């Protein structure tokens, strides 16, 4: 029994990603065709070269036919996966493990979500399962809002300081997104605007919440030894970890909403798979699940980027800025790149693919670092009851 990982056994050899945003003129099928076509071209393959497909979508369709019908795949296995907002990362795990097992030579992971067709702002209707009416009807914003005062109380950060910390996270991610041609929001937003935006839930304001976007992202994965047949610059998978929490946080009076144990556990497994012992000093960049600004703050500590109770200072000091010591969400994150649920995990991997290959455009977006590990972190659910994914990727073997 053990979580051994697949370090250096599978490589990403091509990726694609749509622009994220309100695609009123495109449906799920159009988004899928966009991202997969880019990925096929990047890897120099066609749809027929792919032996098996994994598609992640939380609410835009059921079964593998979400992909097989629009792409007109002929006699191919397509697996549809769903794991809350970590659905895209789950698709990548499926495809990568299938290749690592030897079952297939070449596989594709694609994530997609068309969320803007509901007629409502925000995410709606992930589950229509019959129920007894006793379940919460709260929005995710309200659940994550509870983390900010809890963190502030525990570590002595007063309300004004906390407001500045959260705004700084949002400001940074908007700065990064403003540079990124594929981001939903390509606009810098001032600290003042962020701090005075309308309240949504608890102390969270509009700019504390991620963008709700349509989009799709895709990856082609092969065995590591075959990688150079497809590209000169493959991105090797160093670790893929996943933890589905037991939901005990909301039943356990000892849980204090200042950390996400599921993320801490997923990170520990990923670091173990990849042999990482000092994440703060080994990781070049991270894409993390900044669905709401307090989430990014707590995630910095759960991933070991900052000691407990200190991430708020590092945020203010710019540690996680694009030109900081450890850039976090250099593509703008969920905050400004947007969050099409099933696509987000693969969008994170796409940024790792660009940055670690030195392909981030325009050039001012490209991070400069002598480190060679990129981390993606993708969660689904709420404080106290979540699933969490952590992935590590690097451009070199070993």
């Amino acid at each position, binding site marked *: 029994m053990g979580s051994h990982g697949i370090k250096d056994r599978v490589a990403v050899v091509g990726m694609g990603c749509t622009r994220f945003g309100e695609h009123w003129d495109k449906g799920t099928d159009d988004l899928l065709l966009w991202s997969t076509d880019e990925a096929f071209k990047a890897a120099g393959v066609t749809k027929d070269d792919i032996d098996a497909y994994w598609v992640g979508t939380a609410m835009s369709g059921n079964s593998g036919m979400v992909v097989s019908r629009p792409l007109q795949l002929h006699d191919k296995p397509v697996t549809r996966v769903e794991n809350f907002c970590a659905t895209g990362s789950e698709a990548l795990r499926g495809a990568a493990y299938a290749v690592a097992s030897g079952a297939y030579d070449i596989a594709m992971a694609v994530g997609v979500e068309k969320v803007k067709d509901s007629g409502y702002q925000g995410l709606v209707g992930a589950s*229509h399962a019959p129920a007894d*009416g006793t379940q919460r009807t709260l929005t995710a914003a309200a659940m994550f809002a509870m983390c900010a005062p809890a963190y502030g109380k525990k570590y002595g950060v007063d309300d004004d300081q906390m407001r500045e910390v959260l705004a700084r996270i949002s400001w940074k991610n908007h700065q990064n997104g403003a540079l990124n041609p594929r981001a939903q929001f390509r606009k810098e937003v001032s600290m003042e605007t962020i701090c005075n935006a309308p309240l949504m839930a608890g102390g969270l304001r509009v700019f504390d919440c991620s963008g709700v976007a349509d989009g799709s992202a895709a990856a082609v994965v092969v065995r590591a030894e075959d990688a150079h047949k497809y590209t000169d610059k493959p991105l090797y998978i160093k670790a893929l970890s996943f933890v589905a929490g037991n939901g005990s946080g909301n039943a356990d009076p000892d849980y204090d909403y200042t950390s996400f144990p599921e993320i801490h556990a997923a990170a520990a497994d990923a670091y173990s798979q990849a042999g990482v012992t000092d994440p703060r000093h080994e990781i070049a960049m991270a894409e993390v699940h900044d669905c709401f600004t307090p989430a990014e703050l707590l995630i910095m500590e759960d991933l070991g980027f900052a000691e407990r109770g200190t991430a708020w200072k590092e945020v203010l000091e710019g540690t996680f800025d694009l030109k900081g010591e450890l850039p976090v969400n250099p593509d703008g994150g969920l905050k400004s790149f947007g969050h099409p649920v099933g696509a987000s995990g693969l969008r994170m991997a796409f940024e790792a693919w660009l940055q670690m290959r030195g392909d981030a455009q325009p050039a001012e977006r490209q991070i400069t670092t002598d480190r060679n590990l990129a981390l993606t972190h993708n969660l689904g659910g709420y404080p106290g009851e979540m699933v969490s994914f952590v992935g590590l990727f690097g451009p070199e073997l070993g």
Partner: protein
Amino acid sequence: MRGILGAAGYVPYWRLDRGTISAVFGSGGGRGSRTVASYDEDTTSMGVEAARLALRSAGGTQPDALWFSTVVPAYLDKTNATTIHAALRLDSDAPALDWGGAIRSGVGALLTALRASGSTLVVTADQRDGLPTSAEEAAGGDAAAAVLVGSDANGAVIAELVGSASATEEFIDRWRAPGERRSKVWEERFGETKYVPLGEQAWNAALKAAELSPEQITKVIVTGPHARAVRSLTNRLGVGTEALADDLSGTVGYSGAAHAALLLASVLEQAKPGDVIALISLADGADVLVFRATEALASYSPARPVVAQFDSGGELPYGKFLAWRGKVTLEPPRRPEPGRISASITGRSEDWKYGFVGSRDRSSQAMHLPPARVSRVGDAVDEMDPAPMSDVEGTIATFTVDRIAYSPSPPIVFAIVDFDGGGRFPVELTDVNADEVKMGDRVEMTFRRLFTADGIHNYFWKARPIRGS
């Protein structure tokens, strides 16, 4: 000896200052305030609250039967008393029956229970409505009351029934077509000519049965929807003004089917052993019940006196009142409305949903809300005991205000509640203003109607601040 084992009123938290009505419309209203059921309350949920208090006051006696009477039933065809039965977790062999339709059914259920055998919990509730600016709107009130009736064999009788009488006659004074929220009334002089003789007839008959004269009555309660007839009869009873009970018209308003039992509960809360209490109800006839408080009243401890409840209410703006009563429609949050609940899932989770019963792992003592089969601590399987939590108080660990989620009356105030003795549950708060909630506040559970979809009411529990108990 047969009589009352316990009684309680339930007065909703919200108050409408009658002066605010004329401030909006230039007419209507009056002095004082009336009670208003919250947007998440109905006659069934208020009945549950009154019944919980009555059973607690009666010291744990479980009734052999549950009768529920209201003019505004949450359901037709389907029995409403079964919801109360489930929330109280009564034994399945206790019948739960509705007494429907008329104001008189409330006092009628009480009188019938007193003349029957075994222990019966009589629950009454009402929500009073009228068109904006009407006397009905201003003078009405929302409330519930519950009386546990029984004999010595069932528990300590605190007030013995020593006499009763009724008088009945068919006449048109007040009426309402099924489905209407508004009653209509005939010219009031006519009703007075009917009610007063009927009241005198029943009053004299009841005193005769009790072998008492009017001056021997310590407290008399006269109630009914026809205020003028109530006043006229009161003047003819031959009792002193000191014997007249407060009719709560200035604080609660007239609460229809619930009002007789509400006033009786309130008077009992202030009575002494030996007091003689007469209850006169004028509703499509007259019903008179005469009680003598027993020595057991000295050791009787009401769970939450009526007077304490209306002392701790909160002001409701008239606009909110109109919105909650469906008289104006406010812009809802732009979120999907919830779908109807599943009958079969609800059936499987009856104890949790209606009774707020979690589970406690025997080895680790870990609490599970909702109940679980596998323990979150120690992983024991099916080693749980039921943990009834509806009467357990808790503390707000943290909370949030959700301005975007769907609610019949946004915003949602939501708290993580840690219960005394263990157990945590994230739950919606009610009877609060969002800006007054603090971490560390103490809360209690209350039975509410969360929403209605496809005509199915979704009842569950919320938490509310502990006030004025």
